[in-house]
């Protein structure tokens, strides 16, 4: 069930030069949330900025009633968010449809890039909990922008890294690692979240190899709950026609097979 409430800030800490981890107490959300869902956060008590910011769930700590978010400090809203050291903030969630998996899955791969890595940790946790072999492929501009490598390892995932400048892992794109992995390993499912070019690459690759792929998309949002129709993405309907689905409501996670990318 979606709620919109004030939540206490338990921690809001810089974890990398541009990234913060925010932990808030909000049992009403952690209770039902699943990996891939997100929340909308009010970042100001004034009218500027006006809109809430969508941030994915990074960890869902159901037992203690908290959630953790990892966000990149980019503009107005995230700058203000990074300055909130204590007190409460207004948060709405859990929103959207998350990732899904089946009991029968043996081996899956998670591909993440940039701040798109953030929502994948809680996914990995759930997949590992489900007894799968989880390959995690992480991409970033450089070492300083690479999120959560250690956390994934700690969970027991097999982690491979690519950076644009080679400062960590392979120099190059994470899609190259994925291609190699696919050629040597049977994957039941690929999960992907990251910048659009990366997502595009992963979709093409998995399509050509006939591997089911779920991707998490980003779109500018206003309501976050499905009412304003601001955040849509193009999909192919079952009857072959083109339609729109709401990233905030039917998404943010979609089966790659239904998505239409402009540069297909």
């Amino acid at each position, binding site marked *: *069930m*979606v*709620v*919109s409430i004030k939540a206490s800030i338990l921690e809001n800490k810089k974890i990398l030069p541009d990234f913060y981890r925010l932990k808030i107490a909000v049992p009403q959300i952690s209770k039902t949330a699943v990996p891939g869902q997100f929340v909308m956060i*009010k970042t100001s008590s004034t*009218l*500027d*900025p*006006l*809109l*809430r910011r969508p941030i994915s769930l990074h960890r869902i700590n159901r037992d203690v009633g908290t959630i953790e978010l990892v966000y990149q400090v980019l503009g107005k809203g995230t700058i203000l968010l990074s300055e909130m050291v204590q007190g409460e903030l*207004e948060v*709405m969630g859990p929103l959207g449809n998350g990732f899904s998996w089946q009991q029968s899955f043996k081996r899956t791969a998670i591909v993440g890039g940039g701040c798109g890595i953030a929502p994948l940790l809680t996914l990995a946790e759930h997949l590992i909990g489900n007894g799968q072999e989880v390959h995690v492929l992480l991409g970033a501009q450089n070492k300083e922008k690479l999120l959560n490598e250690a956390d994934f390892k700690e969970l027991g995932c097999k982690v491979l890294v690519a950076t644009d400048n080679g400062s960590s892992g392979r120099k190059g794109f994470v899609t190259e690692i994925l291609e190699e992995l696919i050629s040597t390993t049977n994957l039941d499912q690929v999960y992907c979240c990251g910048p659009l070019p990366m997502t595009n690459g992963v979709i093409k690759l998995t399509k050509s190899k006939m591997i089911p792929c779920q991707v998490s998309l980003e*779109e*500018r*949002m*206003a*309501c*976050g*709950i*499905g*009412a*304003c*129709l*601001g*955040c*849509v*993405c193009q999909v192919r309907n079952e009857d072959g026609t*083109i*339609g*729109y689905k709401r990233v905030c*409501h039917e998404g943010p996670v979609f089966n790659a097979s239904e998505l239409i990318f402009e540069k297909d």
Partner: protein
Amino acid sequence: MTKIAVEIAGIKMKNPVLAASGCYGFGREYNQLYDISRLGGIMTKGTTLEPKLGNPTPRLAETPAGMLNSIGLQNPGVDKVILEEIPWLRTFDVACIVNISGYSIEEFEIIAERLDGVSGVDGLEVNISCPNVKGGGMAFGTDPHTAALVVKRVKAKTKLPLIVKLSPNVTAITEIAKAVENAGADAVSLINTLLGMVIDIKQRKPILANTMGGLSGPAVKPIAVRMVYQVYTAVEIPIIGMGGITTFEDAVEFMLAGASAVAIGAGNFTDPFAPLKVIDGLEKWLEQEGIKDVREIIGGCK
């Protein structure tokens, strides 16, 4: 007990706070958060004759204390609205006003005809002011003659009360208001969005795929209040005021300016409970001020 019920163009509402068209879908989404029958009314997403996909994305851009949208009237079309949305909405004790848009006067007529007599529909909001559709939309609402013509023709096709939604992108809003009043409008609602644009300086292109979009939110409130105030002195029919309302104080401001009811659009995005807070705040304020009936403050600005 303070009375907060109002009646606009024969539509009874338990309080004067509505959800603005396009910001609230058909109510389903916000009903997850609270019982939508707490509102005075719901103005539905703009409904057209045929299903519409709307504009490409990005469709949203944030601006200082405001936002641009260029949804472009994405909606399932009037028949599906009648079949799938109204029957659901009808189960709630809340006024249902269907916002309608046509690409031609004939389309307006057909939509109005189809909605006439549909159980659960309490009135029509005739959108002659959408800035986000080509060939039609706002063009109907920026010329008094065309505006009057649309209203006259739609009026002939339905017994439902007509609330005509005015565009703020005009030199003289009072002229348009008077024209639609004379043509038979039962009420007016204002303002729709102001045409605006944001450029991404890195990409050197507009943020919105559709180049321009409609500005709404608190940024436009002073313009909206001014227009409500002007229209109040120009026409006799009631006004539903909107544009930037986020608090009960804002709602009172619109009512003092001349609105008989108010609608909340972008305010829902800042705080999904905004409409409820406005209702509660308004009621408390009236009590504090010793005002027995909310209708006493309508047009009360000296």
